[in-house]
C-alpha cells in the first residue's frame, strides 16, 4: 500500500524500519504502525487505519431510526449499551420525548455496568501486555458476570441492541435484579485483589510510570476526552458537566491523574470502576422507589406496541404499521447529543430532513480522535513502551474505523 514508506534501503542507513501490524498479537485489533527505529527507540511512526471500516455513516442514511441501533453497538463493542442508549437519547432529543425517571435509572445501571466491563478489559489487557496474566483472569470472570446480566435483560451479550427509542423493550426481571445485586456484593473483593496485584507492584510501576505521557494542554488540543484526558489532569466528564439520563441526581467523583502517563490512565480507570459501582447502588435504590412496571415512555407513535396488542387492538396495529413502514412524523432539525462512553465523549450529530432515515448522521468516535496522538506520544520511547501506551489508550478497532 502506498501509505508505507520503507525509506531508503541503503546499507549506510542508521535506522531500521519496522512494520508493526496490521495483525499483531500485541496490538489487540487491526492496527498498523510503521515505525522508524534507532535501535530500540522509536524515531518516528506512521499509523494506517481503516482495516475494518464498514461505512456505518453511509448505511445509516438508508435505514430507519430504530434499525440504526445495531450499527452503534458494533462501534465500541466493549461497552455497546452506552452506544445504544446514546443513540436512543439523540433520537429522543430530536423527537422531544421525555423518558420516565425509572427508565433513566435503568439506563444508568446498564451504562455503568458497561463502563465497568469496558475498563475491566482495558486494565486487564494492560496487565497482560506488561507480563502479568493473573489479574486478567480474575477480571474476565467478572466481565462474564456482567454479560450474564445483559443477557438476562435483553437476551444478547456482546452486541446488545439494548432498548428502544423511548425506553426498554421489556422490564428488568427479578433474576436480573438479583444478578446485579450479587455482582455488587461479589465484585469489590475481586477488584480489591486485582488492585493489590497491580497498584503498588514494582515491576508494573516500572513498566508504566512515565510511559506515553501527555500534558493537559496537548491532550485538549488533540481532542482527548474520557479517562485519557482525565489522566492528564482535566476533570472533564460529561456525566458531571452536562448530565443526561438523570446523572445530576447521583453522587460520584471524577478521578483525575497528574501527568497523563500509562500508570495514571490505569489508576483513573480503576477509580472510575469504584465510582461506577457507587452509581449503580444509588440507581438501584432509586429505581426501587419508583412505581414498578414502567420501562418506556408513553409515546405510542414511536415506541413499538407489544405483539399481543398488535393482533388484538386496532390502534396498536396502526402504530405498529406506521413505525415499521416509516410513516411516523419526524421533525426536521439538527441535533448534537453526546454521552460519556467508555473512552470519552461519544457524540451523535444527526440531521433530519423529515424522512424515515437520517439525512446525515455523524458519529464522534472518541477512539478515532485520541488515536491520532499515538504517533506523537511514542516518539523517543522504546518499542515495548509503545505497545503498553497503545493498550492504555484503549483503542477499539470498531470504534476507530466505524
Amino acid at each position, binding site marked *: *500500500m*502506498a*501509505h508505507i514508506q520503507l525509506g531508503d534501503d541503503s546499507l549506510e542507513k542508521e535506522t531500521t524500519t519496522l512494520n508493526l501490524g496490521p495483525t499483531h498479537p500485541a496490538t489487540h485489533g487491526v492496527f498498523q504502525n510503521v515505525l522508524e527505529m534507532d535501535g530500540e527507540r522509536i524515531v518516528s511512526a506512521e499509523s494506517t*487505519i*481503516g482495516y475494518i*471500516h464498514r*461505512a456505518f*455513516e*453511509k*448505511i445509516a*442514511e*438508508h435505514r430507519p431510526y430504530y434499525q440504526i441501533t445495531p450499527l452503534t453497538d458494533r462501534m465500541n463493542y466493549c461497552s455497546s449499551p452506552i452506544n445504544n442508549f446514546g443513540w436512543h437519547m439523540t433520537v429522543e*432529543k*430530536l423527537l422531544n420525548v421525555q423518558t420516565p425517571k425509572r427508565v433513566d435509572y435503568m439506563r444508568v445501571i446498564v451504562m455503568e455496568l458497561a463502563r465497568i466491563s469496558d475498563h475491566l478489559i482495558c486494565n486487564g489487557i494492560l496487565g497482560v501486555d506488561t507480563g502479568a496474566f493473573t489479574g486478567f483472569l480474575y477480571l474476565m470472570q467478572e466481565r462474564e458476570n456482567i454479560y450474564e446480566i445483559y443477557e438476562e435483560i435483553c437476551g444478547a451479550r456482546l452486541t446488545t441492541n439494548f432498548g428502544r427509542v423511548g425506553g426498554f423493550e421489556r422490564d428488568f426481571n427479578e433474576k436480573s435484579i438479583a444478578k446485579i445485586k450479587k455482582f455488587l456484593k461479589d465484585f469489590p473483593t475481586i477488584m480489591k485483589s486485582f488492585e493489590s496485584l497491580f497498584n503498588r507492584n514494582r515491576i508494573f510501576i516500572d513498566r508504566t510510570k512515565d510511559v506515553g505521557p501527555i500534558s493537559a494542554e*496537548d491532550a*485538549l*488540543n*488533540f*481532542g482527548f476526552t474520557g479517562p485519557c484526558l482525565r489522566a492528564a489532569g*482535566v476533570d*472533564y466528564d460529561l456525566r458531571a*458537566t*452536562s448530565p443526561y439520563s438523570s446523572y445530576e441526581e447521583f453522587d460520584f467523583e471524577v478521578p483525575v491523574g497528574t501527568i497523563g502517563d500509562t500508570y495514571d490512565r490505569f489508576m483513573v480507570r480503576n477509580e472510575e470502576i469504584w465510582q461506577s459501582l457507587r452509581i449503580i447502588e444509588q440507581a438501584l435504590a432509586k429505581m426501587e422507589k419508583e412505581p414498578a412496571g414502567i420501562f418506556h415512555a408513553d409515546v405510542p407513535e414511536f415506541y413499538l406496541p407489544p405483539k399481543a396488542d398488535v393482533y388484538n387492538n386496532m390502534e396498536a396495529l396502526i402504530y405498529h404499521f406506521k413505525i415499521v*413502514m*416509516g*410513516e411516523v412524523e419526524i421533525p426536521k*432539525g*439538527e*441535533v*448534537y447529543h*453526546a454521552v460519556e462512553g467508555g473512552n470519552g*465523549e461519544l*457524540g451523535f*450529530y444527526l*440531521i433530519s430532513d423529515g424522512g*424515515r*432515515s437520517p*439525512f*446525515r448522521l*455523524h458519529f*464522534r468516535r472518541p477512539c*478515532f*480522535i485520541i*488515536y*491520532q*496522538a499515538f504517533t506523537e506520544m511514542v516518539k523517543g520511547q522504546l518499542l515495548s513502551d509503545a505497545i503498553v501506551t497503545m493498550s492504555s489508550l484503549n483503542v477499539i478497532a470498531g470504534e476507530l*474505523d*466505524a
Partner: protein
Amino acid sequence: MITIDKNTLLSDLQEKFGAAIQKVEEPYGLLTFTTTKDQLLSILTFLNESDVYRFRFLTDLCGVHYADEKQLAVVYHLHSMESNFRMRIKVFIPESNPRIPTVCKLYKSANWQERETFDFYGIIFEGHPNLKRILNVDDMVAFPMRKEHPLEDPNRIDKNDSYFGR
C-alpha cells in the same frame, strides 16, 4: 468559572466580522451560525485565542452533502470547556470548487477529522499537512458519502426499495 453569554458573544462576533455571521439560529439549544470560508480562519482564531471565550476544544468536524443545492458543508462543533459552552459553525462551499482552509494549526485534533472528511466528501482542506485518504483504500476514485452514490449496487434487479419508502 467564566460564563459565556450568548448575546454578548454574538454581538462581539457581529461587531468584528459583520456580514460573515449569517443565519444565526439555536436548534435544540445549540448556538449555530453559518459563515464564509474566507472568514472561517479569522473567526476560529479569534474564538480560540480570546481570553474571554476560550473555545480551545474542537469537539467534532464533519462534512455534509446538500445534493439539491449542489453544495457541500463543513460543520465545526466547538466547546469552551471552562464555561461549558458549545456552538456549531457551518461553512457552505460549492460542489464545483470544494476548497476550504485547514484548521490543523489551531486544533491538532482536526488532522484526522479533515482527512476523513476529504476521504468521504472530496473536500480539499488547503494547507493540510497530509491530506490523503484515511478509512477507504487509497485507489478508490469516488467520494462515497456524496449523495449521488447509492448504497447498493444499482444494477441489481431483484430488489425494489421504493416499496419501503427508500
